[in-house]
């Protein structure tokens, strides 16, 4: 069956489209808003900002997080900054330029209309966050400071030291806390959503598990918003937090929501290389470091000298050499792919030869150690804590790691999935970054969706439903899902196998990074599509989960997430296999230019691949949403 996907993009000129559409959409009268219940799952930047904004408007909001507090979501770990086209520095920035950079950075695989709106509301985000008390960096005159980021030739990134995500999340969290305190939001902490409930084709609620008592509960609403983040943890080792998972979006997918571009994952160029097998996660070092750090390896393969012993003329500053215009500030995908190539050539550095140098010696000489400390002090400290090396004295070692997933639930211009009443915002949707996300754009998108898009678009869906009662939670639509969830949860405890879910997750990660990482080829992906189901079968027979379903049981939480990763991993490989072009974050080895750069194929692949659940992830069916570019000229990206 082919899905009916209507992106609902309004007609008109790009620069007035959103403004005009806001007027055209249906409104819910202020006094009627309290007659609608909205569920928001996840309390990161997108979820917290949406829950707070919807509650301020007057809707009854129920918010859910599996953490002990809404302030813990992984948005908190974003370091570098947030983009906005304020042009405070008069260096030629504009909404159109931010839009253009984002579409280009995404390698022409996103919708122009969505991205333009994102660039437009970026202005409001900075105003909102500043008013909330986010302590952005300032110039001496008291005005806001900016830094540069990869993929842009203007300075448009606002930042709060190396903790921008933390500060923006605290801003959104505090706004949420205010409305929780006022009783406008019912906050459910340590509660994990395990399924979506769909009745007569509409999303009518969710089923959750209380992580402390194990109680399975149903919650009914007029609309359900998923703000549950991305799925990089499918690779096991990634920069995501340990608990980040795909369960909410995957379960929604199984209930009929299309999953778009699952293979679009971003491998971030500046992470600390892994030290040994037991490594539980990878730590990101903000990309902003590339502003002042120079990336290099030895010109000689297998060079065992220490960094400081390699003289200047024997170093290869390969990004500056290959891309003189952008140098160390090329987009993430280009930086990552080049690092991988250097390591494959045997030029990797560090004890495991799995990194490249990021060197601050020149900047320290030029700007002084104090300036560098002021800009990156906390990052340098973090690096030293993990590696026991002092980056003021020796170059950092960095290596690409899975970091962000551009793919996600398919949504229309209103951020609604193809299930009416089910929305996906932030990293959980696929909408704005195409095949590669530019640095400092994730915070922007999460907050744009939550503060400035969803609160408008949701009214358009709710307005005609005025007076419709909630589906009661004892309705068979709910009780059926509840018993499925209960059965599935208890099932894991009855397998009594021999190995932990973590073991299987690690093995899955190895397959994924080998065959569905930065470089992909047909043979490898086909191999992965054999290996993943085989490992999955083993997992289902041999996983060992102890304890009970009626207590706080972290192994039980984990095993269900790993189960969902297995299915998603298969879909990612299938999507990657069908995309026979290099684009954005990944290189399809069969599709390269003569000098080894990624070669996009716009004639055959300028589309969004939206996958439909058929009962077997390896046999999912695809619907293609063609991408039409009216304002941006498609060109092979060049950062030379």
């Amino acid at each position: 069956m082919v899905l009916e996907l209507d992106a609902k993009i309004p007609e008109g000129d790009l620069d007035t489209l959103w403004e005009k559409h806001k007027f055209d959409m249906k409104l819910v009268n202020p006094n009627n808003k309290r007659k609608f219940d909205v569920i928001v799952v996840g309390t990161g930047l997108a979820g917290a900002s949406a829950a707070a904004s919807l509650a301020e408007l007057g809707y009854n909001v129920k918010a859910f997080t599996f953490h002990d507090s809404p302030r813990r979501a992984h948005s908190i770990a974003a370091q570098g900054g947030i983009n906005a086209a304020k042009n405070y520095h008069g260096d030629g920035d504009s909404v159109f330029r931010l839009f253009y950079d984002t579409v280009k950075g995404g390698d022409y695989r996103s919708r122009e209309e969505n991205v333009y709106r994102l660039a437009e509301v970026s202005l409001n985000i900075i105003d909102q966050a500043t008013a909330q008390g986010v302590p952005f960096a300032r110039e001496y005159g008291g005005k806001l400071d900016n830094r540069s980021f990869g993929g842009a030739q203007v300075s448009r990134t606002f930042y709060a030291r190396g903790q921008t995500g933390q500060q923006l999340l605290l801003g959104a969290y505090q706004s949420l806390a205010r409305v929780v305190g006022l009783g406008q939001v019912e906050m459910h902490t340590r509660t994990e959503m395990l399924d979506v409930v769909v009745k007569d084709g509409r999303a009518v609620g969710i089923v959750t598990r209380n992580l402390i008592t194990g109680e399975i509960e149903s919650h009914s609403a007029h609309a359900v918003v998923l703000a549950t983040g991305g799925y990089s943890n499918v690779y096991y080792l990634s920069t995501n937090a340990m608990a980040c998972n795909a369960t909410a979006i995957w379960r929604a997918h199984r209930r009929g929501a299309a999953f778009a571009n699952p293979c679009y994952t971003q491998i971030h160029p500046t992470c600390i290389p892994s030290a040994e097998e037991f490594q539980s996660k990878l730590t990101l070092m903000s990309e902003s470091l590339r502003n002042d750090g120079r990336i290099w390896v030895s010109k000689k393969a297998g060079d065992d000298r220490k960094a400081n012993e390699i003289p200047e003329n024997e170093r290869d500053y390969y990004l500056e050499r290959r891309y003189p215009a952008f140098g160390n500030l090329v987009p993430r995908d280009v930086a990552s792919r080049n690092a991988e190539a250097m390591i494959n050539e045997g030029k990797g550095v560090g004890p495991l030869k799995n990194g490249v140098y990021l060197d601050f010696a020149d900047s320290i000489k030029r700007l002084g150690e104090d300036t560098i400390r002021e800009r990156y002090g906390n990052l340098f400290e973090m690096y030293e804590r993990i590696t026991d090396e002092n980056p003021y004295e020796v170059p950092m070692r960095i290596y690409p790691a899975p970091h962000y997933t551009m793919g996600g639930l398919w949504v229309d211009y209103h951020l609604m999935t193809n299930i009416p009443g089910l929305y996906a915002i932030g990293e959980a949707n696929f909408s704005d970054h195409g095949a590669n996300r530019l640095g400092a754009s994730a915070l922007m998108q999460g907050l744009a969706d939550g503060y400035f898009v969803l609160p408008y678009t949701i009214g358009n869906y709710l307005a005609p439903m005025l007076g419709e009662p909630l589906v009661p939670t004892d309705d068979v639509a709910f009780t059926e899902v509840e018993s499925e969830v209960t059965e599935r949860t208890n099932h894991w405890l009855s397998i009594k196998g021999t190995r932990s879910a973590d073991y299987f997750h690690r093995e899955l990660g190895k397959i994924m990074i080998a065959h569905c990482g930065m470089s992909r080829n047909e043979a490898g992906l086909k191999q992965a599509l054999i290996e993943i189901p085989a490992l999955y079968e083993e997992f289902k027979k041999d996983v060992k989960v102890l304890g009970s379903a009626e207590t706080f049981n972290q192994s039980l939480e984990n095993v269900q997430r790993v189960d969902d990763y297995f299915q998603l991993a298969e879909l990612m490989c299938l999507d990657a296999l069908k995309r026979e072009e290099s684009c954005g974050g990944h290189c399809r080895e069969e599709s390269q230019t003569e000098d080894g750069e990624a070669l996009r194929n716009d004639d055959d692949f300028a589309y969004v691949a939206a996958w439909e659940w058929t009962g077997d992830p390896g046999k999912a069916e695809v619907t293609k949403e063609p991408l039409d570019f009216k304002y941006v000229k498609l060109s092979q990206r060049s950062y030379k």
Partner: protein
Amino acid sequence: MDLTLQVWRQAGPNAPGRLVDYPAKDISPEMSFLEMLDIVNENLNAQGIEPIAFDHDCREGICGMCGLMINGLAHGPQLGTATCQLHMRKFNDGDTIVIEPWKAAGFPIVRDLAVDRSTFDRIIEAGGFITVPTGSASDANLTLVPKEVAEWSMDAAACIGCGACVAACPNSAAQLFTAAKIAHLSLLPQGQPERWTRVEAMVDKMEEFFGSCTNHGECETACPKEISLDFIALMNKDYMKAKFKNRRLVSQAG
């Protein structure tokens, strides 16, 4: 490295707890403390013993989810470091390490090493915000903030809400957390309109759950973000002033 762990095990909030010995063998000094616990848990799982429950998430020292008493020290022996950023190279082969949860009346134990810190959320809900409904903000550069003020506010805002300050305090007081939250907002021009109501509401809410501050300073030493004790002085000063200022507001209102 081979180590012996003495770990607090407690089946649930109301169950009795006790320290249980577990060996941790072949531990690499490159491991983080939590990776060491992962290995111990893998082994326990293999032996049919339920793994040790402990809270953790980002493992980058920013989410504030982790927090263990390690040999009686909140977040362990390394200054300015959250548990997840502590590495085994700080310990010696043959060491016995005692691992306990945060122990404070304001943080009831959920299970083993995991505690409930939702009282911190209650303090924020009482006033730890600037009221600014979405869309009502004016252009960001209309509010000038002197660079030093922004930096000082950021020093306070760096708090990760882990609760180490409470755990380290002999009185289980939450002054450092509350003061950091108050200072973050009250130092900024944007935070002035609610400055006096904020401090009063947050301090009063804090006192419902936590002990009183007697200036031991253990909190500052334990804080993984090295939040300064000076913020407590600022909070106390503002709280006192608020008692007059807020009264004046009340009288003006008639």
